[in-house]
């Protein structure tokens, strides 16, 4: 708690900060005392699932999917239709194919997640490294900014920005990106500090390497490892945050997202009569978030990121 307003171990704080933004997606999962030096079968299952979903989302326009926006009204029958041979996940109230919508929804949901965490990595990583490397005033100012951002409940900040600007894919991705700067930055800073005094850095400095060179050549590779693990967790958080925004009526305006799909089926009568409308996207969302969390967590243990983060 060197900077006075700190609230404890960075790992935990980061987790909680992210949890605030996501409403419960991630928490420090690295407490596993039995860190094994293997990634384990679970990791590979997770990665497989993530790959499948990402590929399906990326290739959606070329896959033989039904049009996600068409109304497949069957004569004489009132939608929603339950899962069947034609509609694997069933349809929603407007007879739109849920399987196809889930995949098309992944495009937006995952884009939001990806852009958000990329934003966090680039800006958070940069700021965190500057703070951790130069220390002094740089550190004070940047750390304070991080603390300011972390002391907002992140969802409130997200609501604020999406409400003030228009609700496009870009705004929402960037908003969540801004929110991921502080948690990622803190980890980058802590990691940088832990490496800044190591022999190889001191050696480089003695040899007259420029700050920029030291940061890029010596520190960045070491900072990237924990951040890579963090990226997976962060992506999960962003995907979930989009869902939270959807429930507040503030998600991306155009196109289907997982959050919006769940909301469509979450009314009590629909849950009673056609639970698949909500549960099809919930299951896919859950598996994806779980995989991202699990893979990120395993990576973190594998590289033993925990100590550096502290």
């Amino acid at each position, binding site marked *: *708690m*060197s*900077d*006075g*307003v700190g*609230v*404890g171990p960075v790992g*935990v704080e980061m987790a*909680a*900060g992210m*949890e*605030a*933004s*996501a*409403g*419960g*997606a991630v*928490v420090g*999962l690295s*407490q596993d*005392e*039995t860190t094994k030096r293997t990634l384990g079968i679970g990791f590979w299952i997770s990665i497989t699932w993530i790959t499948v979903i990402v590929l399906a989302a990326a290739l959606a326009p070329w896959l033989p999917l039904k049009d996600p926006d068409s109304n497949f009204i069957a004569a004489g029958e009132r939608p929603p239709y339950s899962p069947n041979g034609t509609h694997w996940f069933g349809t929603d109230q407007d007879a739109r194919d849920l399987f196809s919508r889930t995949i098309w929804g992944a495009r937006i949901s995952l884009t939001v997640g990806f852009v958000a965490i990329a934003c966090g990595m680039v800006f958070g990583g940069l700021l965190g490294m500057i703070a951790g490397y130069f220390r002094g005033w740089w550190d004070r100012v940047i750390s*304070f900014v991080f*603390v*300011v951002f972390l*002391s*907002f*409940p*992140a*969802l*409130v900040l997200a*609501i*604020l*920005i999406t*409400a*003030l*600007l228009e609700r496009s894919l870009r705004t929402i991705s960037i908003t969540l990106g801004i929110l991921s700067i502080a948690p990622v930055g803190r980890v980058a800073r802590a990691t940088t500090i832990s490496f800044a005094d190591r022999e190889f850095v001191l050696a480089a400095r003695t040899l007259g390497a420029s700050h920029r060179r030291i940061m890029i050549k010596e520190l960045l590779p070491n900072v990237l490892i924990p951040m890579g693990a963090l990226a997976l967790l962060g992506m*999960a958080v962003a995907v*979930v945050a989009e*869902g*939270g925004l*959807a*429930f*507040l*009526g*503030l998600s991306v305006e155009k196109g289907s997202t997982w959050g919006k799909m*769940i909301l469509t089926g*979450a009314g*009590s009568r629909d*849950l*009673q009569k056609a*639970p698949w409308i*909500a549960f099809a996207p*919930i299951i896919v*969302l*859950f598996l994806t*978030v*779980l995989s991202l*969390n*699990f893979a990120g967590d395993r990576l973190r243990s594998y590289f033993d990121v925990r100590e550096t983060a502290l």
Partner: protein
Amino acid sequence: MRYWLQRLGAALALLLAVSMLTFGAMNLLGDPLFNILGPAASDTSTEEGRQIIADAKAEYNLDEPLPVRYVKWGSAFVTGDFGVQFSVDGQPPVADLIKERLPRTLMLLIMAQLIAVTLAIPWALWSASRADSVVDKMSTATTFLFIALPNFALAVLIKYVLSIKFEIFPLIFNAADPFWTRVWQMVMPALTLGLPAAAVYQRLLRTDLITTLQEDFILTARAKGVSRRNVLFKHALRPSLFSFITIFGITTGALIGGALVVEQVFIIPGLGSAIVEAILREDFPVVLAIVMLVTAAFVVINVIVDLVYSLIDPRVRAS
């Protein structure tokens, strides 16, 4: 003492920064005149339109530079005058609105934490004493699931199981009902927030407990013939309080965010629905007030956590 002064100063600086950020964002990104008047804000074609604009500007000090407006707003705010709402007919004043909504959100948070703590402690003790057994691993996997499940999805799931499949809990919160009925109505949302929090606490406590249980004084106590149960409760749990208090504070902050979404799903007219509604209307005074209150609560909780921490472990003050 000096440490606490510093600590307090930092907390105040933080609140100041947050308020400037929020106030600035609202005024720069949004257009307050538009928020007050709607499209009429750009109607300068008629005398009537121009008069309306001039009146609004005067009433809300919109012609003053931003810093002046900030100071005016801030100095009124600290005296408890949160201003009037932009929308509706300006009624009720923001402070009254919050007075009505806040207790419901507080009740939700308190119930969620109660549920979380009362679940987590026995759960952690139970699995720590069986560390690395099959049931322990299963319980760890369960915590993982609870934590990974997004709260809105958990809310839908809980609503589905507890209220629709089995009609145990009512679907709606009703402000006119007696206290205990309202508590009953809050159980589902509190569970939605409490279960993941319980999982977080359980993981932390369990890890701590396992470490503590290996330490000498515990082994000594065991050797002296203190029963297993007593060791767990009296000796092992105590050192874990440190980290527990920290994460309790942090989780409280996180739950506030979660409460916004959960209040929407379970239709509870608390602060969450108030801020969502205010944001849709771009009603800045309401948004500002709620953001500031929530942030202040967040900061205060952190200070309290530190305080309690230092009472338990005097070394903190030295650092």
